[in-house]
């Protein structure tokens, strides 16, 4: 019976991070992209927890707490901007926001 080590969690977190990143790259709905960013941050959180467990310190869990708050703040601001854009453009697709380029 294998013992679950922190490494397992970290690997899971890595996969989650990559999934989140992939989502950001392939989805064009800004809201979904934000969700994917949340996935990435959750991967970070899982890593922190697992690493904290491995190191035997609480710092990892404390870090999760802060990351959580940051994520919340980002979401608030992000959603406000998306709402603002949607009001004006009737779209949440980031592909249609490419006036600035070159």
């Amino acid at each position: 019976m294998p013992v679950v080590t922190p490494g397992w969690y970290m690997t899971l977190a890595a996969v989650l991070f990559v999934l989140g990143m992939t989502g950001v790259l392939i989805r064009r709905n800004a809201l979904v992209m934000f969700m994917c960013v949340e996935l990435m941050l959750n991967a970070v959180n899982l890593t922190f927890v697992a690493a904290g467990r491995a190191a035997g310190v609480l710092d990892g869990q404390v870090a999760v707490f802060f990351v959580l708050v940051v994520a919340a703040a980002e979401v608030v601001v992000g959603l406000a901007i998306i709402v603002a854009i949607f009001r004006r453009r009737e779209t949440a697709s980031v592909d249609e926001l490419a006036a600035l380029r070159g």
Partner: protein
Amino acid sequence: MIPEAFPEIAWSALAPELVLVFGAVALLLLDVQRKPGVKVLWVMSLVILAVALALGVWQWIAATPEGEPIFGGMLLFDRSAALARLVVLGVTIQAMAAARSLFAHLGNRAAEGLALVLLAAAGFILMAASQNLVMMFLGLEMGSISLYILAGIAGDGVRSDEAALKYLLLGAVASAVFIYGAALVFAGTGSLDLLGIGEFFARNLLLSPAVLLVGIGLLTAGLSFKVAAAPFHVWAPDVYQGAPAGIVGYMAAVAKVGGFAALARVLLSGFENFRPDWAPIVAGIAALSMVVGALMAIISSDIRRLLAYSGVAHAGFILTGLASGVEGSSSVWFYLAVYTVQLVAAFSVISVVGGAASSGSDLSDYRGLYRRSPFLALVLSVALLGMAGLPLTTGFVAKLGVFLWAWRGDLEWLVVVAVVASAMAIYLYLRVIVIMYMQSPVGDDPVLCDRPTSWALGAATAVTVVLGVFPQPLLRLVETAIYL
């Protein structure tokens, strides 16, 4: 259960930031209560900044090169942090002095705007002083989120929205990458504290630090995004073009100061032992930034994009100094201090010429600016020549500094790339000067700028030239601001 070792709260060390934060809150409350005029709020914010700067100077004098850890090692207020504070506050004042018209345009949202500026400044200062990776992340987010909002707050429509969303989305990804890097470093060392990390390396001999290498890479990439270094720079031109002109200079400058301070602290203080590993990638990013920045700037026809790309190139120059190691950080600081002044001055001119909130900034608007406003043309020229690194401007001294240290740090190839790129870049600055001085004006109407703006611009120009000829004071100053 109250731990007996409740950390001492070093209020005095944080005095400037406290002033900023309480000032911001005061502005918001005042706005809610009394609805004072924009001018009152604006003057207030300047006063707050001035007080903070004064306290910052006091703190600079008090600071020691080794620094003093406060808040249980969350922050390290050493000379470099104190210098970062001075630079951030300095350019904030410079930018704010020239930004009255922007806040006038914001109308009833001026208080929010001003508060966000102050909070962003505080955030980046904290970021620069952070000794702890999570703390650094918090400072980074405090500054960045404020900037995301500022990018979207005052713009005149679609472009501003787009800029804000781009900045936010990509910034969030970059933040995630950064904090993931921090997490991996934590996994590899069991510590989030840069000093602790350093101690860990002192205790353990690591043969295969793959986790750490990835962590370093992610941290570097995340911060490279913030300072707009290639290939993590693509957002910068779009955001600089779309965000309100009156605030872009400030946004660019403080983000660069905070980002580079953090990068320097992480790499030089935490991972000094890994220099053989990270120096090549930093050098690579530097080279790529210089070349790509110059190439793209040459073909852009919008002055804001041009400056954004030139900013990419400058990030490359600064990284050149950074890659050379601890000693080179003094040159990084010199560069940051003088470049941000030029950057803010240039964008201030842009906001005067194109309107503080508008996003129109086509190069053709600058045709014959010399005739419409000799003063603005001169200011912009000096700023551009400074960025070009022409002797007798601070830009030259700054470039010389990073080149010198890079050469001493055995990065000869990078210096060669850098000098070639800087020669290439001269063309793009000249192009603007040509347009201003050697083409016939688009209109006859003179471009006027208000008095505080003029003062700010005049001061920036004077600083660029005077410190360009006699840079000794600043050189001595930054000499002590290295990451021991």
